[in-house]
C-alpha cells in the first residue's frame, strides 16, 4: 500500500480545483507530521519483547518535540524569511516564531540581497531617569523610573551619516563606512568588521526588535531566521531524511532517562543516534556531485596575494 492518499488531480489543483492557488500541499510528501512520528514510535518501538516495554505517550511527545527543536537549530531545512521596508524608527519587529537569525540583507534594485552585518558597537540599554543631582528617580512603588528610549538608541537612530556629511564630525557616526574612515580607519588602520558599505544591525532582545543603522532607512530588508519547528501544527513536520534520527533520539532519550536501564542499551542507542544524526545531516546538507564539480572548477584559478 502506497503512502500517497491523494489523486494527482487533487495534488496539483488542491481542494478548490484551481492551479497554484495556495491551498495545495506542493512538496508535502517530503515531510512527516509529528503525530505520525509519535504514533509510529509507539507501535514500532514500544511493547512486549522490545527494549521499551512501556512508556507514556506524553513522554514520547515531549522527546519528539525536543528532537525537532534540536534538529531545527542545526540540521533541518529552515526556509523562514520575512521581508519589510525599514521604517523611520529603524527597527524590524522579530517574527513570532523567531529563535535566532541566520542572515540579514537588503535588496538592491536588481533584486540582489546584500548582506548586512551585526554590529557590537552599540546597544539599547535601559535608561534610568536621574534628577538634577544625578540621583535615580523612583515611582510610588519604589521602582526606579526608566526612560522610554535610551540616549544611546536616540543618538544611533539620529540621521548621523547625513549630519557627518554636513559637519564632518567623527564622533556622530553610525554608518560603518564613514565610521571606519573617520574614527577607526584613520587612526589604527581598517577594521575588517566595519569595512563594508551595506549597513549594520543589532538584535535588541529586550524589546524584541532588530535595529538598523540609519543608512538603511527605507530600504527593503530581509530577515532569514531559524525557528524551533514547533511554532504551529504546520511547522511540526520532519523531513524524511531525518525521521530515523528522530526515532533514535526518542529511543535514547527514553532509555537514558529511565531508572534501572542497562547501560549497554543506553550506549548502543547513543551510538545509533550519533550515526543516524550524521547521516541525516549529510543528506540534508544538499551536497550534489554536480554542484561540487562546478565549485571545484574554481581550483584552476590563479589566486594573487
Amino acid at each position: 500500500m502506497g503512502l500517497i492518499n491523494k489523486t494527482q488531480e487533487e495534488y496539483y489543483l488542491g481542494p478548490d480545483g484551481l492551479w497554484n492557488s495556495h491551498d495545495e500541499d506542493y512538496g508535502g510528501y517530503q515531510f512527516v507530521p509529528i503525530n505520525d512520528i509519535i504514533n509510529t514510535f509507539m507501535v514500532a518501538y514500544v511493547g512486549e519483547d522490545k527494549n521499551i516495554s512501556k512508556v507514556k505517550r506524553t513522554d514520547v511527545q515531549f522527546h519528539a518535540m525536543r528532537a525537532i527543536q534540536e534538529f531545527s537549530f542545526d540540521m533541518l531545512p529552515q526556509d523562514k524569511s520575512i521581508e519589510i521596508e525599514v521604517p523611520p524608527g529603524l527597527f524590524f519587529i522579530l517574527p513570532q516564531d523567531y529563535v535566532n537569525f541566520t542572515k540579514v540583507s537588503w535588496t538592491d534594485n536588481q533584486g540582489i540581497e546584500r548582506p548586512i552585518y551585526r554590529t557590537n558597537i552599540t546597544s539599547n540599554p535601559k535608561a534610568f531617569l536621574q534628577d538634577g543631582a544625578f540621583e535615580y528617580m523612583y515611582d510610588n512603588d519604589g521602582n526606579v523610573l526608566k526612560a522610554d528610549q535610551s540616549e544611546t538608541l536616540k543618538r544611533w537612530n539620529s540621521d548621523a551619516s547625513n549630519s557627518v556629511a554636513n559637519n564632518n564630525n567623527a564622533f556622530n557616526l553610525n554608518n560603518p563606512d564613514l565610521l571606519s574612515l573617520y574614527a577607526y580607519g584613520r587612526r589604527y588602520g581598517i577594521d575588517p568588521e566595519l569595512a563594508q558599505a551595506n549597513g549594520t544591525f543589532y538584535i535588541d532582545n529586550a524589546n524584541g526588535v532588530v535595529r538598523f543603522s540609519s543608512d538603511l532607512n527605507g530600504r527593503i530588508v530581509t530577515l532569514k531566521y531559524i525557528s524551533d519547528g514547533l511554532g504551529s501544527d504546520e511547522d511540526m513536520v520532519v523531513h524524511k531524511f531525518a525521521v530515523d534520527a528522530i526515532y533514535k533520539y526518542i529511543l535514547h532519550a527514553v532509555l537514558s532517562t529511565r531508572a534501572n536501564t542497562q547501560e549497554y542499551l543506553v550506549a548502543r542507542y547513543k551510538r545509533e543516534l550519533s550515526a543516524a544524526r550524521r547521516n541525516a545531516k549529510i543528506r540534508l546538507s544538499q551536497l550534489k556531485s554536480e554542484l561540487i564539480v562546478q565549485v571545484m572548477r574554481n581550483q584552476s584559478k590563479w589566486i594573487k596575494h
Partner: protein
Amino acid sequence: MAVSIDTVYQRVLAILNKEQRGYVTPQEFNLFANQSQLDIFEQYFYDINQFGRLSGNDTEFSDMLNILNEKINIFEANAAMVWNTTTLHWTPPANLYRIGSIVYENTITTKSLYPTPNTVVTTKVPVEAERINYNEYLAIAQSGMTKPTNSRPVFVANTSGYKVYGASEVTLTDVKCNYIKKPTEAAWGYQMIYGEALYDSTASTNFELHASEETELVIKILEFAGLAIEDIQMYQVAAGIESQTNQQEKS
C-alpha cells in the same frame, strides 16, 4: 464458546457422589460456580502480566499470551461513555470490570476536490486518551511541550468517573471506551418435580468463560464443595489437581 452450566453441575455431582461423599444443592452449586468463574477470570490478568515478560513462541495455537488473550477477548467490549451532567464526569458502562482504553473521536474538517471543489469533509478519527494521574495532569497542562491536544488527549479517573482532556476538556459527546465487562452470573436453573430438582435450560445461564475452562471450573467447584461438605480429602485432591495443572501450564 460458553461452558454449559448443566454439564459442569452433572460432573461435579458425579465426582462427589462417586463414593457417596455428599451432595451439593443447586443453590450451593450456583454460589460455588460464580466464585470459581470470578477466580479464574481474575487470574487471566495476572497471567498475562506474567507471560508478557517472557519471549513467547511462534506456534499457531500454543503461545500463552495468545491463549490468554483469546480467553479474555470474550469479555472485551466497546461502548460510548455517557456524560454525567451532575458530576461533570464521563460515566463508564454499568457492566464495566476493567477499563482498557478511552477513545476520543477527534473531529477533523478538511476540504476536498471531490465530488465538487471545496467540499467540506468532516471525519472522526479515533485516538486513544492516555491515562494519567491528576497531579500529573496539573503539571503537563502547564507546559506547551506536554499539554494534551485533540490528537493526543489524556484522561484522569476518580470515583465520579473520568475526565478527558484534549485541547480543552472534552464534554457531552465523542468519548468511547474499550473495556472488560464483568462475567455474567452463571445460574443452574431448575424446577422441582416430585421433590427433585430438574434442570431448566430456560432459567439457566451458562458460564461465559472460554470452553477450555470447563475442567478448571469443575475442579475449582469441587474444592469449594469439599470444604462445604467437610470432606477434606475431596478438597485436597481437587487442590492437588489444580496445582498440578497450573504448574504444567506456567512452567
